[in-house]
């Protein structure tokens, strides 16, 4: 089969599978799968957002978990204040807590985007190894900041007693929550697809390969890279907000560098520089983790070699293997 056909087939098959999954799971009496795959969808959003940086813009960020964590904490903190009946802050204006998803999820996105703007503006002054290290350093700073926040549980984190509310949808119901996540994942992948093929995306992809050429054309890459960093941060914030809802629990662990590393593994496993690859990567990674962890607590012993083999033999990860696409951006 020709690669475009295989690609189309894979994408439609994947979309259909995801759409019918809750029905299949309840028919099989394994409703646990619905919750598990909600987690996959959420991690997929985070992985796709990270791939915008890694695969398209060529910026190796090792601190992506920070934005996931910030998004999650926005949901957590607003929930906490809502149930404690006290404002989140009262200066310069009074902001009440809330459990409304229409408010807290956009806020999670905005907060993460803003954090990415500030951190990115500083990190992008550096290149290469320095960039990797400084993104990591900022993420760890934020991690320790939240560890030290006694009001919000410090090390132990915050428990939410229910999921956010959404008019007309009961997010507390696992099936409805699953479709809500699926809807957002589809939306985010579509946005990202438009983005990488747009004029902005062209500049971003060009800059990842040849910064100097871009400057010689008269394009200063800094603003574009920063914008991309902010968009990726916003995507991670959305994933964080959903994750807080999914587990009904937020903790500084969400910002730990190990989560940044796991997201990176998902991207590499699924296919660097592809949009559907990270979705596949998130599913395969979490499934393997789940299955291997049933048999041994040292599941990484098996995951490690598997990852090495995929990375060595498949340039575009599992997605590249399946679609037969060696090296195009798509």
């Amino acid at each position: 089969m020709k690669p475009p056909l295989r690609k189309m087939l894979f994408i439609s098959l994947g979309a259909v599978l995801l759409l019918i999954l809750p029905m299949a799971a309840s028919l099989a009496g394994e409703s646990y799968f619905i919750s598990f795959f909600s987690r996959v969808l959420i991690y997929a959003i985070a992985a796709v957002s990270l791939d915008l940086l890694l695969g398209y813009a060529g910026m190796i960020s090792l601190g992506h978990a920070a934005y996931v964590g910030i998004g999650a904490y926005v949901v957590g903190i607003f929930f906490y204040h809502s149930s404690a009946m006290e404002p989140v802050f009262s200066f310069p204006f009074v902001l009440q807590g809330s459990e409304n998803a229409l408010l807290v999820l956009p806020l999670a996105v905005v907060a993460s985007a803003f954090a990415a703007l500030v951190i990115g503006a500083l990190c992008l002054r550096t290149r290469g190894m320095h960039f990797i290290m400084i993104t990591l350093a900022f993420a760890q700073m934020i991690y320790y900041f939240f560890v030290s926040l006694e009001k919000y549980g410090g090390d132990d984190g915050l428990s939410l007693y229910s999921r956010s509310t959404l008019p007309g949808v009961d997010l507390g119901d696992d099936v409805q929550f699953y479709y809500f996540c699926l809807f957002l994942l589809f939306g985010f992948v579509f946005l990202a697809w438009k983005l990488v093929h747009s004029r902005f995306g062209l500049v971003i992809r060009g800059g990842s390969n040849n910064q100097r050429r871009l400057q010689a054309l008269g394009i200063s890459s800094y603003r574009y890279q920063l914008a991309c960093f902010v968009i990726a941060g916003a995507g991670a914030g959305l994933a964080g907000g959903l994750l807080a809802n999914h587990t009904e629990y937020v903790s500084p662990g969400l910002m730990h560098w190990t989560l940044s590393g796991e997201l990176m593994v998902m991207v590499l496993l699924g296919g660097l520089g592809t949009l559907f690859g990270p979705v596949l990567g998130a599913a395969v990674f979490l499934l393997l983790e789940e299955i291997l962890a049933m048999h041994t607590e040292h599941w990484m012993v098996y995951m490690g070699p598997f990852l090495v083999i995929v990375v060595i033999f498949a340039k575009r990860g599992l997605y590249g293997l399946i679609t037969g696409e060696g090296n195009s951006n798509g």
Partner: protein
Amino acid sequence: MAEMILQIDNLTKSYGALQATKELSFEVRTGHIHAIIGPNGAGKTTLVNQLTGNIFSDSGTIIYKHQDITRLKDYRRARLGIARSFQITHIFENLTVSENMALSIFADNGHNFRFWRNSLNSPIVKQKLPKALARVDLTERAASMASSLSHGEKRQLEVGMALTGAPDLLILDEPMAGMGPGGTVELSKLINTLKGSVTILLVEHDMDVVFSLADMITVLDYGEEIITAPPSEVRQNSQVRKAYLGEDA
């Protein structure tokens, strides 16, 4: 007096004890093909980088169209109409030929914060892309990844990209480097067709190319200007012969 597009005055750049350009002064006339030649290590590429803003000069001034650009950054100079090709081919290997060209078409058309429409469907690209591809004979390769082009085709693409912005000054840094004889002829022809429509500063090793194309030649040796003159005069100059062929010539 004819219009000068570029006036270089007392330009100096040293790397430690090594003086890569030494009090260099010359002018480039609008519409000319002005060649820079000199033996290896004469400071040709350093000069190009100084002109494009990839390297800042220690002292001296660069006047481009009556404007002092000595302290301007590279991308600002590019916006003023100075385009360049690199000695080692610089294209976007991870993009297709069309995308490479589109990116350079966008470069001088405002900002690129357009997130929605497919880049190749943009009206400005639809209008300019076919001509830009045809000009450097790459129409048939439009959908290929740039990384899959032959060496000569990559060169053509690079020159094509430098031309999309209708630059006033085109700096070609050894465009013939690494090309077979066929490619050299093709590219010489291309450069010749540009003559008059754009001022070209041509840095080149291939003497046949230089003497057949250039209106004016500046010869450098150890960062110093030996002579700036028309080809016929340069050919006769004894100092040039010495620099190229050694003392005995």
